[in-house]
């Protein structure tokens, strides 16, 4: 009982702290957060499109990139075919001349990106997933931030391409919340991921910190941590819109999130040494301690939840066999300090959700909003599955 009480209290403190941090950042910076920045120069940029078996989407992505607003003389588009077994290479080849096409043996997304970086001629490299469509000014809006020399990377505002199925709409709502909270964290240099759909990097810094980690399942998270550890900054262009394919079934969603979680664990373990080294990077002072706390609370929370679930199930089974009417006895519930904490946490989370949806000036349907909490409650189970997969050293590319 005491252990569960402590777990509840610590979880409340951590969740409240992070929510209040976001609310404070929102209150103090909401005017300037979404302010448009002017651009004075447009440097050369190589757009890297890593592709593995993307025959369904590569054509649209190339056409989209060819149509974006950026001076053509300063824009180099490179499609890296990572040993596809379908028609990806043939389709991309049709655009040769307008774009550069590289082919290599399959080695994963990070290896394709590194291959692309080695062949890129520009001062900046942008990574665009092969299933992503950019708004016309997305790249330009990212480049505005590089006026400051200490900025190593700029991420974009990602939403889902499809919004027909409930699972797609749920992910879209989730991405809206992620977008705003990510932007809010920018001022504290706490953006801990430069997502694949669209992120732009200063190439010399990328080379200096050592390009993408080919052994990590979330190379976009790992590179961001490495950039921050080296005391560079990461910004987010809220007006740089990128629309990406999202998993269209629960099974595919589960696989994608498992990959993210395993990559997260890999990143955390890789950078654990940071805690014991000198320095004041945001990875050391906030991101790593917060991630460790979150992982621990998640693990303990799941253990406690499963314990209660199994106990309740046994209770139900036992009551059935013994002939006891448990619903008559156990229906009442007494409010106490932890139910108060639970209600506060829920209200704070709903407030963040409302601010995020309002900032997008988009209304979600009632079913999506009602299902959002159950959807979020699935995440700890994915995490549990990921730990199991990670422990069994199953770290293959889980989305394919």
């Amino acid at each position: 009982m005491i252990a569960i009480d402590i777990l509840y209290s610590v979880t409340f403190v951590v969740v409240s702290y992070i929510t209040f941090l976001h609310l404070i950042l929102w209150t103090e910076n909401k005017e300037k957060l979404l302010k448009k920045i002017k651009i004075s120069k447009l440097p050369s940029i190589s757009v890297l499109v890593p592709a593995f078996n993307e025959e369904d989407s590569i054509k649209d992505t190339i056409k989209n990139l060819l149509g974006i607003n950026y001076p053509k003389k300063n824009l180099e588009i490179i499609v890296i075919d990572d040993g596809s077994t379908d028609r990806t290479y043939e389709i991309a080849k049709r655009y040769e001349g307008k774009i550069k096409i590289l082919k290599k043996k399959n080695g994963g997304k990070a290896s394709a990106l590194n291959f692309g970086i080695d062949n890129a001629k520009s001062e900046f490299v942008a990574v665009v997933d092969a299933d992503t469509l950019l708004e016309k000014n997305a790249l330009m809006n990212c480049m505005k931030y590089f006026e400051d020399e200490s900025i190593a990377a700029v991420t974009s505002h990602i939403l889902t391409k499809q919004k027909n199925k409930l699972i797609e709409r749920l992910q879209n709502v989730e991405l809206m919340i992620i977008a705003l909270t990510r932007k809010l964290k920018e001022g504290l240099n706490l953006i801990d991921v430069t997502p694949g759909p669209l992120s732009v990097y200063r190439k010399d810094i990328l080379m200096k910190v050592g390009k993408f980690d080919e052994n990590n399942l979330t190379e976009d998270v790992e590179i961001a941590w490495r950039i921050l550890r080296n005391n560079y900054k990461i910004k987010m262009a809220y007006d740089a819109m990128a629309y990406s394919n999202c998993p269209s079934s629960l099974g595919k969603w589960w696989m994608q999130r498992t990959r993210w979680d395993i990559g997260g664990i890999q990143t955390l373990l890789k950078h654990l040494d940071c805690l014991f080294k000198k320095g004041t990077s945001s990875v050391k002072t906030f991101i790593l301690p917060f991630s460790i706390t979150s992982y621990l609370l998640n693990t303990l929370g799941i253990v406690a939840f499963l314990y209660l679930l199994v106990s309740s199930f046994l209770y139900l089974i036992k009551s059935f066999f013994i002939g006891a009417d448990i619903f008559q006895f156990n229906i009442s519930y007494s409010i106490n300090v932890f139910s108060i904490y639970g209600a506060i946490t829920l209200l704070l989370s709903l407030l963040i959700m409302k601010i995020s949806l309002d900032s997008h000036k988009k209304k979600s349907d009632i079913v999506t909003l009602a299902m959002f909490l159950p959807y979020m409650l699935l995440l700890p189970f994915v995490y549990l599955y990921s730990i199991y997969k990670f422990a069994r050293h199953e770290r293959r590319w889980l989305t394919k």
Partner: protein
Amino acid sequence: MADKMNAYYKAGILTIIVFLLGAVFGIWLDNYRLSSIRETISQIDVNWNDARLLNVYFGMLGKNYCNLALEENLLYNDKIYKEGLEIEKAAEANRFTPELEQEERRYTLLQTQFWFNSQELKDKCNFTYNNVVHLYKQEDLTVGSDMDNKLQSSILMDLKEKCGNKIMLIPLAANLNLTIIDTITKQFNITTYPAIIVDEKTVFQGLTSLDSLEEVVHCS
């Protein structure tokens, strides 16, 4: 930099304030429940003394007081059992009132007195009702034990509903360091909880089904 630190500090201060406010509200709620329970137990105490003195008075007068005493006992049993469930719920929910244990002890002693009185009344007046004493351990952290206690309570509630005035249901917490309860458990060799003593003769240890109890308790 100062602005950045300010955001961290402000979030920390807000978290502490909300945490403390939640705790203060929780303490207020727990104390509210505690004082309500105190009041109820005091009322039960008064009722108990009233009923007991009535028995003594009728005994002194030598009149046939059996029916009146039975009526009083049944009324008292119903009331005290329902209050017991409220105390249990409060004990589960409360986090800031260790004083609640003292109230639970008072309640258990009242129940024990009621049990003895019920036994005496049964002997004197040749009543046929059954005394069903439910011994349990509160907040037992042994896996399954707490579950068994709850199930046993539920089964006994069903039994009470079926038998009505034919049984006196008396729940007693066995882990409140009360000498009288410790002596009873030793005397009946009780090692496993929940345990049920029927008419001071038959002892069931561990979770007992309604069917098993109905074999001993004849209420039809």
